[in-house]
């Protein structure tokens, strides 16, 4: 069967279920907002325990990643993500989920070529382009310092 890209686009649009924006948007907003509130509570707790701002932020990230990793292990993060959409993807917990889920999923292919090789299958591009952008920024900063 031959068809043009435009025709194919029309077919996929017909076949894929209609996304209901009035449902997905508020859910993403509320669930994402709640995860950020949890982050704020942790940050306040660690600040109260005497950590400086930078360290409190780092330990907050580590705690959220810990929660996300174990929810992923129990298969619960996927269940929340079904409703949360971007609300569970965009926070750092979503990043953690994108690391832990393939680590667990590809365990059957071995701990070296499965878990370890596939652990960064989604997070890899994020790190590559994040670091690349930060190096470009650093070089620009350095050049401005010279001037």
């Amino acid at each position, binding site marked *: 069967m031959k068809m043009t890209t435009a025709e194919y686009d029309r077919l996929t649009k017909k076949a894929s279920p209609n*996304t209901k*924006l009035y449902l*997905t*948007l508020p859910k*993403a*907003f509320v669930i*994402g*907002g709640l*995860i*950020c*509130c949890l*982050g*704020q509570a942790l*940050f306040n707790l660690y600040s109260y325990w005497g950590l400086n701002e930078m360290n409190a932020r*780092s*330990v*907050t*990230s*580590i705690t*959220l*990643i810990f929660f996300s*990793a*174990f929810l992923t*292990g*129990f*298969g619960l993060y*996927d269940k929340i993500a079904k409703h949360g*959409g*971007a*609300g569970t*993807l*965009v*926070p*750092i917990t*979503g*990043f953690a989920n*994108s*690391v832990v889920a393939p*680590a*667990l*999923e590809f*365990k059957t292919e071995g701990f070296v070529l499965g*878990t370890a090789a596939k652990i960064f299958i*989604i*997070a890899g*591009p*994020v*790190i590559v*382009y*994040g*670091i690349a*952008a*930060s*190096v470009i*920024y*650093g*070089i*620009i*900063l*350095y050049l401005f310092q010279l001037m």
Partner: protein
Amino acid sequence: MEMFMEYFWAFVIGGAFCLVGQLLIDLTKLTPARILVAYVVAGVVLGGCGVYEPIVEFAGAGATVPLTGFGYALAEGVKKAVAEDGLLGAFTGGFTAGAAGLTAAVVFGIIVALCFKRGDKTS
């Protein structure tokens, strides 16, 4: 009351970042991986331009928990490292700032892979 406003703005701004992500998922063909890449790079660029810092001061975790906050942390790390070590800092700052998050994700990833069984995909 001040305490309440802190959580309120963390909720609203953090929620808004997720709302934009949801719009990208629903209205474009961007895959989740591409959205995450876009968020981190946007965080580095906004952090570098000095736009993101006021948002962090205003919304706290509402700005640092979304992945743009990770990008902002990378930019801040590079800024600090370049000020201390010059050009070398451009190469060390990013990973130094991201170390906690990246290491946590890898370590907990391995622990979960060791301790848990693969989830049943049928449910």
